[in-house]
């Protein structure tokens, strides 16, 4: 522990840490953004077509069961990307997060009260506009809850990518272990936790902005 000030005192180390942190943010948040879009599309499909629902839900369960290290290794074998390419980690995390989000999105869309959709239709909303401006916003609280879980788990899982040559804060663990040096490992754990906390706070703020009616306490 006494090594920490010495380790952090070096300007070169701090620059390297910042770079790893930014890598980590990139590797964990790109999958989050992509899977929000994917989950909305797939959730809509599930909501509209029952058979799709059953297939996607069981597929999500299987994806969620596969350990991250194995999925990182199976992606290049399945789609032919290079083994050491960070894109494997991004795709794997996108699969996990989408698997996590599809079911809640489908259920949230199904939970929109029929009198609300009926009023929107009666006011002349076409299906797409009704979906984007009425049903989707009402699903935001559920979606946000899922996205928060997904962001925490992505931020923690990116580190595993260090074992197959991806950057990010995980390299602090592999390097620290190889040099039998605790300081980078401690810094890596703390930075991961802080990053997860900050992203979570941002997501809560974003959710509150997107759903002003919840705070106002009124029913939609």
């Amino acid at each position, binding site marked *: 522990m006494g090594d920490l000030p010495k380790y952090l005192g070096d300007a070169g180390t701090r620059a390297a840490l910042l770079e790893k942190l930014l890598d980590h943010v990139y590797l964990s948040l790109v999958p989050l953004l992509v899977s929000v879009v994917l989950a909305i599309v797939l959730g809509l499909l599930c909501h509209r077509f029952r058979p799709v629902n059953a297939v996607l839900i069981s597929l999500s369960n*299987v994806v*969620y*069961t*596969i*350990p*991250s*290290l*194995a999925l*990182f*290794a*199976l992606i*290049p*074998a399945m789609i032919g990307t290079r*083994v050491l390419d960070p894109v494997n980690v991004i795709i794997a995390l996108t699969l996990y997060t989408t698997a*996590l989000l599809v079911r*809640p999105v489908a259920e949230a869309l*199904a*939970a*929109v*009260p*029929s009198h609300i959709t009926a009023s929107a239709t009666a006011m002349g909303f076409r299906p797409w506009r009704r979906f984007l401006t009425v049903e989707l916003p*009402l*699903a*935001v*609280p*559920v979606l*946000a*809850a*899922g996205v*928060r*879980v997904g962001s*925490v788990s992505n*931020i*923690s899982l990116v*580190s*595993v990518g*260090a*074992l*197959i*040559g991806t950057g990010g*804060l*995980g390299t*602090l*663990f*592999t390097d*620290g*272990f190889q040099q*039998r040096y*605790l300081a980078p*490992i*401690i810094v*890596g*754990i703390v930075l*991961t*936790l802080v990053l*997860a*906390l900050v992203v979570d706070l941002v997501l809560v703020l974003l959710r509150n902005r997107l759903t002003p009616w*919840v705070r106002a306490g009124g*029913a*939609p």
Partner: protein
Amino acid sequence: MIFADAFGWLLDPVNWSGGKSIPVRIGVHLLFCVGAVLGAALIAVPLGLFVGHTGRGGLVLVGGSNALRALPTLGLVTFLYLVGGGSTVSVVIALVVLAVPPILAGTYAGVQDVDRGVVDAARGMGMTGAQRLWQVEVPNAMPLLVGGLRNAMLQVVATASVAAFVGVETLGRPLLDGIRVLDYPQFVGGAILIALLAVVLDAVLAVVGRLVVPAGVRLSGRTRSKKAQSRRREDPAPVESGGSTA
């Protein structure tokens, strides 16, 4: 074709005998996982039952176990391994630490979720606190408790693979060796083994879950979820799930 080569590696008799063979590694992996989940259950189930039954400390517990979810598994494993002087015990400790939050959350949510009317009825019938806990709350909490155990097992199977990095002979070893010497069939073959083990273990626990959940709870669960669904459809406000699902 990389999958064909990977199956070639998987089926090669050379990999099925000796001290570093596939069966031995599956055994070591299982030993770590089952041991860690049992150890974690010994800590987390009583604690979850206590908090769920008394209702004391629920917020702290949920917040704490959510925060633990953010802990990077590789960081925890390497940290404890160096601190513990490089012993296998520290890997087990890391696995237990990661298995506790899901079991705790499942047990607590299970007890917490029991219909208050049911608990009140039990009290009205003159059941003592212990009787209510063991005869009413625990059986009703079983589905969520088993769900917590399954989540913990998934987490532990994944982390035990990662732990091969610090030198334990789990199924992560062939995968990590494969990437180090750029032996892709072994790399992908190892990944297939880990994925299969995880799916099979999860299925086994699902079956165990069916066996330990009392038939009455399963039936009432079915009707209750139907009722909950229809209630949700009529409910004007969108329902927010607490964000504590794994």
